[in-house]
């Protein structure tokens, strides 16, 4: 494996997207296109599991915000989980923590 992957799986009562590695301006386009592909399927639930993401910048945030907007339009429930402290810190600095449903781990998602 020479670059990090984005895993996509049917689980947790919907589709779970698991990006790996740092999400920055170089890698967020890849995440954006993966999330668009999942939104096109209009699943009941879209979970972004950040457990394998060590770092995220504002381009990663913007990607998640765009995804949430599309999901809302589709009545898809979007949930974030698996954030480490460093990723959590940027949600806090950006004051966007209140705009997402955030749970500790995939296992904390009700109905999964």
């Amino acid at each position, binding site marked *: 494996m020479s670059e990090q992957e984005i895993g996509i799986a049917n689980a947790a009562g919907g589709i779970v997207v698991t990006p790996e590695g*740092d999400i920055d*301006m*170089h890698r967020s386009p890849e995440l954006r296109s993966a999330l668009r592909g999942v939104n096109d399927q209009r699943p009941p639930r879209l979970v972004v599991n950040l457990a394998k993401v060590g*770092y995220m*910048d504002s381009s990663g*945030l*913007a990607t998640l915000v*765009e995804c949430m907007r599309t999901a809302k339009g589709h009545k898809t429930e979007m949930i974030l989980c698996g954030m480490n402290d*460093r990723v959590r810190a940027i949600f806090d*600095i950006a004051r966007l923590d209140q705009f997402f449903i955030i749970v500790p781990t995939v296992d904390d998602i009700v109905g999964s």
Partner: protein
Amino acid sequence: MDERPHIHIELVSDPIYLSGARELVGSVARRLGFDDLQCSKIALAVDEALCNIIRHGYDRAADRPIWISVWPAGRDESGRPSGIRLVIEDEARQVEPNALKGRELDDVRPGGLGVHIIREVMDDVVYAKRKDKGMRLSMVKHAPRRDGPGRTCSVTLGRDGEGSA
């Protein structure tokens, strides 16, 4: 500031190198007295500054120069470095420094985040026009006071084996 920087980097404005730049800065910050979470935030501020230059300054051209200079910003009472000073320069479009304020804190929306993050994370943030062309962003972050004994005395003996410093 006039003193030669301890590290001076010239890199091309390609997002592929963002991770290298921020890992260097985060790692140097670790050695200059910051803990992991603080280092990650300082690295984030540098990342956002570089992204803004690539996006707004160079309109995403990937082959333009960016310069990063790094100095230790001070010494604590035992003489160890304790703080970081960073200067990031480009030769891109010049903008009025006081236009770079960052969005209001209560104006919650995506976008307009980069400058806000930089100002939130760093202690001093000064944008300026360079003499001929391009912008200069000067930033300082002071390390929090260290409590407890100095590092070389911080070896502890006990079942837990963890120091307090």
